[in-house]
């Protein structure tokens, strides 16, 4: 009797597990609605996107923005159907998983700065055989350092991983590390805290997409109009901010975005967008095949993409229809 009961319980448990594993994730399918999955918490760097979203809302779209812990999780949410549009560069996922996902709007170019302790290193050649610190294995920061090593014909002694630009900047200030790569905000921080102590190594012709929008092809067809409206607002906002970076801070106030931002960081907004505009970090066309080719090269070095970059087809990863429609509607 007891044996029977045990068996029944075991079988029941096995069956429950099988059902749980096989239960498909229910996909949302509401019209005129866009659920955007952010790969990071909203910050100064995503302010321009948030502004464009507010403007798209004013034009009648129902957009919901959800921050996820990392880009991978955001991309998974899009693949799984819980979110419609993701933010990031999921090249690896598109290539390896064969998910019907396409990138459709290029929002920003990757901008990182290789920083070294000026008292120890002067240029790239000095880093031969030395330790460099990057964000993580397979990250854009690692790809930048690897690419520059290739171009300068050097090889690092070792590559260490310390996640977080601010953590690496802190370690540079403390002198724990001598060579790393940080983002714009932390480069400024290093220059402010220790003027002249650090040098930024030259980095030419390393172009890659940092953030782009991507979605299911099926969603892009079904919600073509809504996505085009969003793309138009992105394009308008980008052009406006590139022409006058101070607008970013004004629009933040107007739409009451990032309400928790400390007052002393408000000045950072204009500084960030001024610098980004100067270095053309925010493309105004929403993406083009040339930029994607550059991405292939870059992400092949980072390990995200497999195979010869020259053999990869742009149309397997990108669709430019949305950006083209938006450009046409804006008359440029």
């Amino acid at each position, binding site marked *: 009797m007891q044996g029977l009961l045990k*068996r029944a319980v*075991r079988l029941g448990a*096995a069956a429950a*597990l*099988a059902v749980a*594993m*096989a*239960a*498909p*994730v229910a996909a949302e399918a509401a019209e005129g609605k866009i659920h955007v999955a952010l790969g990071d918490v909203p910050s100064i760097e995503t302010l321009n996107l948030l502004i464009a979203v507010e403007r798209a809302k004013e034009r009648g779209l129902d957009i919901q923005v959800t921050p996820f812990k990392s880009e*991978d999780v955001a991309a*998974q949410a899009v*693949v*799984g159907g819980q979110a419609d549009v993701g933010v990031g560069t*999921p090249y*690896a*996922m598109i*290539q*390896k*998983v*064969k*998910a019907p996902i396409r990138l459709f709007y290029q929002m920003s170019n990757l901008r990182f700065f290789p920083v070294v302790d000026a008292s120890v290193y002067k240029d790239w050649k000095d880093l031969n055989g030395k330790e460099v610190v990057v964000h*993580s*294995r*397979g*990250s854009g920061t690692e790809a930048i350092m690897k690419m520059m090593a290739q171009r300068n014909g050097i090889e690092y002694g070792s590559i260490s*991983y*310390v*996640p977080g630009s601010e*953590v690496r900047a802190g370690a540079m200030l403390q002198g724990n590390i001598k060579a790393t790569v940080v983002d714009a905000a932390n480069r400024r921080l290093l220059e402010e805290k220790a003027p002249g102590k650090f040098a930024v190594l030259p980095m030419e012709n390393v172009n890659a997409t940092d953030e782009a929008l991507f979605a299911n092809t099926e969603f892009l067809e079904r919600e073509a109009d809504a996505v085009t409206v969003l793309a138009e607002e992105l394009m308008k906002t980008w052009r406006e901010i590139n022409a006058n970076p101070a607008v970013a801070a004004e629009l933040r106030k107007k739409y009451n975005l990032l309400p928790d931002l400390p007052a002393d960081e408000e000045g950072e907004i204009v500084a960030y967008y001024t610098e980004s505009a100067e270095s053309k970090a925010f493309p105004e066309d929403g993406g083009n095949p040339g930029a994607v080719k550059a991405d292939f090269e870059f992400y092949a070095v980072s*390990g*995200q993409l497999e195979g010869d970059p020259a053999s990869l087809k742009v149309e397997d990863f990108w669709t430019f229809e949305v950006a083209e429609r938006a450009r046409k509607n804006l008359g440029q």
Partner: protein
Amino acid sequence: MTELPRASFNERAPARAAVAEGDGIAVPLRAGAERAGDHVFWWRLASIAIVCGAWEIAGRIPINYAFPSFFETALAFGRMIADGSLPKAYVSTLQPLLLGIAISAGLGIGLGILMGLRRTAEWFGAPVFIVLQSAPVAALIPLITFVYGIGLTSKTLAVIALALPVIVLNSYKAVRNVNPSLVAMARSFLASRWQQILRIILPDASPLIFAGLRLGIAAGFIGVVLAELLITPTGIGDLITYHRSVADYAEMYAVIVSIILFSAVTLSVLQKLEIVLFRPEQREAGA
């Protein structure tokens, strides 16, 4: 004066002898046990087959583009063994794990016993460990990094933070719940305090202490994986993060399943070891 504790050991002696002598006595018993064992073995195998089969089906439907099938995962596992990345990751993960568990076991059992024996130690220690046990330690791990940086120390501390409270509290409860009539008996036979502790209290408490140790080690596995995912990616945590970031989901699942299996096997080996070494009576009954 020491008659009684000896008697208690003598009681166990025949059982031990039977085990040591081996087959003479145990054969008839074992024959029956083996038949039952066979039965259990097939059921277990069937249960594993059902889970793997369900996984394979789920992977083939597929329930999600990022969800690999069982065979893809098994292949990825083979590849990672072959290229050495998985063994290398385990070597790196085992450092904080073993260090943390060794410290937790030594310190935890010692503290727990002390807390069971002495009221002052109990008042001092119990609240700390009860709070630590109920705290969501994953949320505290970033705090550890503020103080101890991002190296081995932090990861070891993360293991200890998860493993220590369980071990301490179980050892403490074990000692506190020792059969009072045994202790009273020892006292009536004029056993000294040390004799009471070594011959009555600890043997009677040991099953619960071992149970706590096993739970602690299971918690230690959680701690080390959390640390490697939350502090800096090394070892197993690095393989999980890296393969996720480059969308090698089969590899990612292979790593996750391997650490689950590793933890499960370690725990069941420990349980077997405990029975063989310390619990002759259970060995007879439960073989």
